[in-house]
């Protein structure tokens, strides 16, 4: 067999079911690559090679490898709780915690027969766009080790782009799947809010968090999406509807025919008069991708979504507000670290000290921001206003989808991956990385990022947004772009390394 880590999930399925390889071999190939590369990359926080090989052996023995996702290795962002496997959410405060239960998505992947390679690095509690906010050190971009892999799912993006995993799960609150996918040349999809269970996903912002797939191809992402999607009675916000047929949509889109599809280019996201802060190269690649869509038969027009410009301030009130409450449970009493419990301090002091030492600066910044925004006398002006803005953004989407277009497109990230350290002292510059991804998050609609070429030798992503529960449209359009470009962008990374 050629290098097993170079294969797509679909190719691995075929090789496994044809008996050309085994789950143990595939798993071992990835573990070997992790051993060789991850010292430099820092994509994983936890790898248990023995457990992975044991699991792969079981799948091989059961003879199910290659059926569905059985026998395929996968990596999970460390925000998902995994029974008996260390889970930190990138935070010092959870160091050493082994959850007693599985997240629903982890359970579903287990039931599907996947092999867990390990848990991937992330910005602490998913707060960040560069993975530099991890308490366990930064992750590096496989395209350029001096650059960030995006965030907060930067461990997953680096692992998949660097072929340290065939695919991985991330979570997206304001862009945390799409932006790291864009800057590492991957496909990353944020599903419709409520269509993938949040049970066992350590909450950052409950009304925004959504788990989703990251992969090197559109079809691989769709396979992972279908494996994790669908109603979960343990999550009250879970939608009781069938999983959109994204695999079929990916296959159909790969045929390259988009005849009759109406595509709206969002003026406010890198369009006329809204180009400040965008890399020229990014805008060029996106324009070329839009031209490809047109070439495939889509009708393209410009659409104005005037409230999208308010997404950033609204997001940075809503998300920190919910986070300030979600993170209150981390007080050192029942799990994770406890600091200062030496018999001289009372409980308030121990809780305060634990949080003081357990949380990093960005987490503290957002807790303070959110606490302030929810305070008596400020609630209406901040949290209340932000919720109204959310309604306006929702209306922009509704208006566009009702009248004019089937999907909206924009750049995923205004820029390519920036150098590590470049924005750490400038939170506002860091937050600006989410400019294009926030509207879909606030409205709860699905959005995918698909590679559309390189700028300055670094990947650029096209974002495709669709109405709620029309995730299949995202996959269809993304697959058409992928097909038009000829091969997965990450192939070029492999060529470069060779």
């Amino acid at each position, binding site marked *: 067999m050629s290098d097993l880590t170079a294969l797509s999930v679909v190719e691995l399925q075929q090789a496994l079911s044809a008996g050309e390889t085994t789950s143990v071999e595939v798993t071992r190939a990835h573990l070997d690559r992790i051993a060789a590369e991850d010292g430099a990359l820092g994509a994983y926080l936890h790898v248990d090679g023995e457990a992975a090989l044991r699991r792969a052996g079981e799948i091989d023995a059961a003879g199910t490898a290659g059926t569905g996702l059985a026998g395929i290795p996968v990596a999970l962002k460390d925000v998902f709780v995994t029974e008996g496997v260390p889970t930190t959410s990138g935070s010092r405060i959870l160091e050493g915690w082994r959850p*007693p*239960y599985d997240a629903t998505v982890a359970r579903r992947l287990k039931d599907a027969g996947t092999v867990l390679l390990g848990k991937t690095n992330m910005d602490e509690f998913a707060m960040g766009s560069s993975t530099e906010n991890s308490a366990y050190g930064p992750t590096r971009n496989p395209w350029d080790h001096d650059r960030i892999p995006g965030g907060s799912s930067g461990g997953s993006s680096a692992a998949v782009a660097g072929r340290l995993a065939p695919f991985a799960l991330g979570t997206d609150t304001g862009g945390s799947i799409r932006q790291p996918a864009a800057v590492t040349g991957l496909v990353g999809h944020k599903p419709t809010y409520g269509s993938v269970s949040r049970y066992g996903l350590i909450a950052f912002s409950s009304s925004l968090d959504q788990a989703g797939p990251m992969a090197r191809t559109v079809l691989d992402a769709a396979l992972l999406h279908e494996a994790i999607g669908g109603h979960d009675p*343990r999550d009250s916000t879970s939608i009781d509807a069938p999983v959109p047929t994204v695999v079929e949509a990916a296959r159909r889109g790969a045929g390259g025919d988009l005849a009759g599809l109406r595509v709206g280019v969002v003026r406010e996201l890198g369009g006329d008069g809204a180009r400040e802060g965008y890399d020229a190269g990014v805008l060029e690649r996106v324009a070329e991708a839009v031209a490809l869509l047109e070439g495939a038969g889509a009708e393209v027009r410009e659409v104005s979504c005037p409230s999208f410009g308010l997404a950033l301030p609204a997001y940075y009130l809503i998300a920190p507000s919910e986070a300030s409450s979600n993170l*209150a449970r981390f007080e050192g009493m029942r799990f994770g670290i406890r600091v200062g419990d030496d018999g001289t301090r009372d409980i308030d002091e121990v809780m305060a000290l634990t949080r003081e030492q357990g949380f990093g600066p960005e987490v503290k910044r957002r807790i303070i921001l959110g606490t302030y925004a929810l305070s008596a006398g400020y609630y209406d002006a901040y949290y209340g206003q932000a919720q109204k803005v959310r309604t306006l953004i929702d209306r922009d989407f509704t208006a566009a989808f009702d009248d004019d277009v089937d999907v909206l497109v924009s750049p995923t990230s205004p820029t390519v991956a920036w150098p590590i350290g470049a924005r750490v002292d400038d939170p506002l510059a860091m937050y600006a990385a989410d400019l294009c991804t926030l509207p879909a998050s606030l409205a709860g609609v699905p959005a995918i990022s698909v590679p559309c070429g390189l700028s300055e030798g670094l990947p650029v992503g096209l974002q495709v947004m669709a109405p709620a529960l029309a995730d299949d449209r995202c996959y269809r359009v993304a697959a058409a772009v992928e097909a038009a470009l000829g091969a997965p962008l990450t192939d070029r990374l492999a060529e470069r390394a060779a």
Partner: protein
Amino acid sequence: MSEPLVEFDDVLTRYEPVIGLETHVELGTESKMFCGCATTFGAEPNTQTCPVCLGLPGSLPVANAAAVESTIRIGLALGCRIASWSRFARKNYFYPDIPKGFQTSQYDEPLCTAGHLDVEVDGETYRVEIERVHLEEDTGKNLHVGGATGRIHGADHSLVDFNRAGIPLVEIVTRPVPGAGAKAPEVARAYVTELREIIQTLGASDVRMEQGSLRCDVNTSLAPTGSLEWGTRTETKNVNSLRSVERAVRYEMRRQAAVLDAGGRVLQETRHLHEDTGSTSPGRSKEEATDYRYFPEPDLVPLAPDAEWVEKLAAGLPELPAARRTRLQQEWGLSATEMTWLVNAGALGLVERTVAAGASPADARKWWLGELARRSNDAGVELTELAVTPAQVAELTALVAEGTVNDKLARQALDGVLAGEGDPRAVVQARGLAVMGESDELGAAVDAAIAGAPDVVAKVRGGKVQALGALVGAVMRTTRGQADAATVKRMLEERVLGG
């Protein structure tokens, strides 16, 4: 307590009290509010827990439909408006017994609003307006180890039992109740009593104050008589008996009057009631109160009770205590005062069931308020805790009515029932308690009495008929009370005076 107090009657000469009550009721649902854990009282600590009620990272709540239904039924029973749209909210604060760092509660969108409950004190009806009825989750229970007080201050360490965390809790909040004057303490008590009975009738909770399934916070304030503004209130926490509800109001009225008399200012604070002395002492000051930063719970979807369903619940409510009292009072032909006695004695249900088992209302009432009340008093237990059932009491009344036993023998039969010897009829049989009929045995006893007291016989025959009583007494003694006194008297008359 060394705090100065004003005599209660004296308080009313210059101040008007306003009271308010917040009552927490643990619902008797099988499972907890937001997870499937059991709710059994008294289980081993931390055995009824899961990731959800422990607040483990990643866990999510799912609302218990049975708890929502119970809350709506309570709201309906209190005449509340049921919201067509209602949301849970997070009440954020840090304490070791709230696992998530917030309590999932309701804030500005409660399930039920604007109800009322009429209570009666000394024949006077007081309307208590209900502001809201909302649903939330209970906290865990702290156990402070070491230290003198059992409170957190001074303890060596603390343990937390999360079995209680997440048990559905309904909070019923009254609007301020002015105008009760000297009756304020009793109105407070009557309100909680009535509320408790309603919830019991609904079967929504076992409402045991001593086990904490019904807990009361009592607000009290005083204002100078005639003042248009209300005074500053204190909140006395976790008052856990009906008697304490009354005492808490009484004590706070007397204490606050003393503070105001001295030209002082009542502090807005929570106070703790001491069950032993009936006094209160300051707790946390509300003037440095926590900002709970309420916001809608994003992990739960809004509750939107369907109007048709609510109507069905309303139609399915059982007869409520007030309606039942009115009906029974009429059926039994009682005066209002007689009814009040019955209710206050906690005997209404027992009498009702005794009547249902065949006793006359008068007999049933006589037994429960008389002999049985005395026995429960002597034993220091509630009437309901006596080892006799309403059916057995009905059987006793039947035995008396049919003449099998007299009152005295019936009481002996009751002794047997309470001692676990079986039903009254069986006890009468086994103990040989039946009244002696006009038998040879009784005849012999009568003859013996006549023969044994010739002087008395002479007196009777000489016209002093009342002297016959001595002979009756003698016969009763020899028959150990088993004879029927009237029969004995008639037989004596026949044999001494007759023929």
